[in-house]
């Protein structure tokens, strides 16, 4: 499996396995063994591969893919990198190539934060805010704000932000632990919580970034003009209690605070998008399918196998999900034939109950009722079987909700098939169950249709 661009424009040095293992222990190092972290920023070269650009010359940084079992996560990271590449902000490190892995132009060196006057600190924070707001609009959140990610470079006398996005998970926490006096308090700080909303996380970290640059004593703070003192007070509230404590909900609002502190005219600042709920970011299903099939073919040819567990399953499950997504899209535009082809391939890769339900719906649309009935019966049979995949830790509730929605869809499908055959009792039972599990307008309409069918069949 290819984990970075192996041939062509870039000459890559180093072993991606070393990078993968360094990243793998990072979460243990920061979340479990944080008391052993030595103070002072350590070198972070181990988290990227180095290389050179044969065309343009110069060094490049490479974010290689992890092991095959992390394929779906790697696709999600690459989806973010594509957005950063398209954004082409002057404040991000240029992304030169995406897939497999990510190639960045060489960023400026990571240095400890300088101490700056309030105007310069706010100007840097405003640049970071610009990137945050635009990336939030694209569905990219939970960014890395540490010195290895959010780097600074001197440009004609002023400091400018050069942000390495996407970054490495937990590297921020490592750098915060390396630069704090109290590891215990830092590791337990709520902004590092895994359940913090991505937008809240980024706004909170922005406030910390600003204060990490600020060199100002309390007397100087008290001497500020009223509007700047108020903006600084709000930022202090955000740092100490989170964005909600400061009444700030989006990066655009936060940019307003930095504009005041940097003494910039509001009219001169380009308006930023207001994003309070992060949109979902999805990979391109066609690309996932092409790549996943190539990986399966490669595995088949090489007979590359893990000693304990066939790694191919880590490709098959996401690949089947991508086929199901493409089938759902084809169904929505009315291309039932294409949808059926995709869902058949999804089922060949992963015998999953919801895919059987989708197959039943598509066969019903094609008037292949006998096959549709068989497909929905298989959906219930597969669902009843013990699931061999477990939801990740902490996601059991979400998993149960998703299962209920899927079971409701299966009951709705079987109920409507029964209704078409005039088996009104069976239809009624399935549709009632569908409404119990996940009431939808379709299930309500179908139950009304059963009631009318009963009225017609009952004399008088």
């Amino acid at each position, binding site marked *: 499996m290819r984990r970075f661009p192996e041939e062509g424009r870039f000459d890559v040095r180093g072993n991606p396995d070393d990078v993968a293992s360094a990243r*793998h222990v990072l979460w243990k190092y920061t979340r479990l063994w944080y008391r052993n972290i030595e103070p002072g920023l350590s070198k972070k070269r181990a988290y990227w591969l180095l290389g050179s650009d044969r065309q343009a010359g110069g060094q490049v940084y490479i974010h290689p893919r992890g092991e095959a*079992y992390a394929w*779906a996560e790697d696709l999600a990271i690459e989806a973010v990198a594509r957005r950063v590449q398209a954004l082409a902000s002057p404040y991000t490190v240029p992304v030169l190539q995406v897939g497999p892995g990510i190639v960045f132009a060489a960023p400026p060196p990571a240095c400890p934060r300088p101490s700056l006057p309030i105007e310069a600190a706010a100007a840097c924070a405003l640049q970071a805010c610009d990137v945050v707001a635009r990336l939030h609009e694209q569905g990219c959140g939970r960014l890395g704000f540490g010195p290895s990610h959010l780097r600074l470079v001197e440009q004609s006398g002023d400091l400018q932000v050069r942000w390495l996005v996407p970054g490495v998970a937990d590297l921020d926490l490592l750098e915060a632990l390396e630069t704090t006096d109290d590891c215990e308090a830092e590791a337990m700080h709520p902004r590092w919580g895994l359940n913090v909303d991505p937008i809240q996380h980024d706004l909170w970290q922005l406030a910390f970034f600003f204060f990490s640059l600020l060199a100002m004593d309390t007397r100087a703070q008290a001497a500020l003009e009223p509007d700047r003192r108020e903006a600084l007070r709000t930022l202090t509230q955000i740092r100490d209690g989170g964005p909600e404590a400061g009444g700030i909900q989006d990066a655009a609002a936060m940019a307003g605070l930095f504009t005041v502190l940097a003494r910039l005219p509001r009219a001169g600042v380009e308006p930023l998008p207001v994003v309070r709920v992060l949109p*979902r970011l*999805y*990979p391109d*299903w066609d690309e996932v399918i092409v790549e996943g099939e190539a990986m399966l073919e490669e595995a088949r040819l090489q007979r590359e196998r*893990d*000693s*304990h*567990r066939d790694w191919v399953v*880590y490709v098959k*499950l*996401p690949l*089947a*999900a*991508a086929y*199901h*997504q493409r*089938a*759902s*899209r084809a*169904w*929505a535009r009315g291309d039932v034939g294409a*949808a059926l082809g995709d869902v058949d391939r999804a089922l060949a890769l*992963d015998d*999953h109950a*919801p895919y059987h*339900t*989708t197959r*039943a*719906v*598509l066969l*019903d*649309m094609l008037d292949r009722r006998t096959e549709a009935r068989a497909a929905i019966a298989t959906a219930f049979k597969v669902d009843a079987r013990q699931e061999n*995949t*477990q*939801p*990740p830790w902490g*996601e059991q509730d*979400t*998993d149960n909700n*998703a299962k209920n929605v*899927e079971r409701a*869809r299966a009951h*709705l*499908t079987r109920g*409507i*098939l029964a*209704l*078409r055959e005039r088996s009104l009792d069976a239809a009624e039972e399935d549709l009632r169950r569908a409404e119990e599990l996940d009431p*939808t307008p*379709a299930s309500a*309409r*179908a139950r*009304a*249709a*059963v009631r*009318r*069918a009963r009225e017609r069949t009952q004399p008088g």
Partner: protein
Amino acid sequence: MKRRGLGWSALVLFTWFSWVDAARADILPEPSRPKDWDEHPAPTPDVPLEDALARRLLPLLAIGMAGGSALVALKRARIHVSARRGS
């Protein structure tokens, strides 16, 4: 003596490799489907039209079509009459 030594070595090696394999199996995460790949809603069946809508819509449609045809016929007849009068 040599045989016993070989036996112990084999046992130690076997235990070591079993342990390494087991540790490796522990590290690998449980295979799971991506939970957030839900861009497109999953297909749902059509509620039978005849039952759900037809009872209300089809009579209205029929009345509408009949009325429309009558109006067109009437208009044509008028044009015909006026054309004859004009001539």
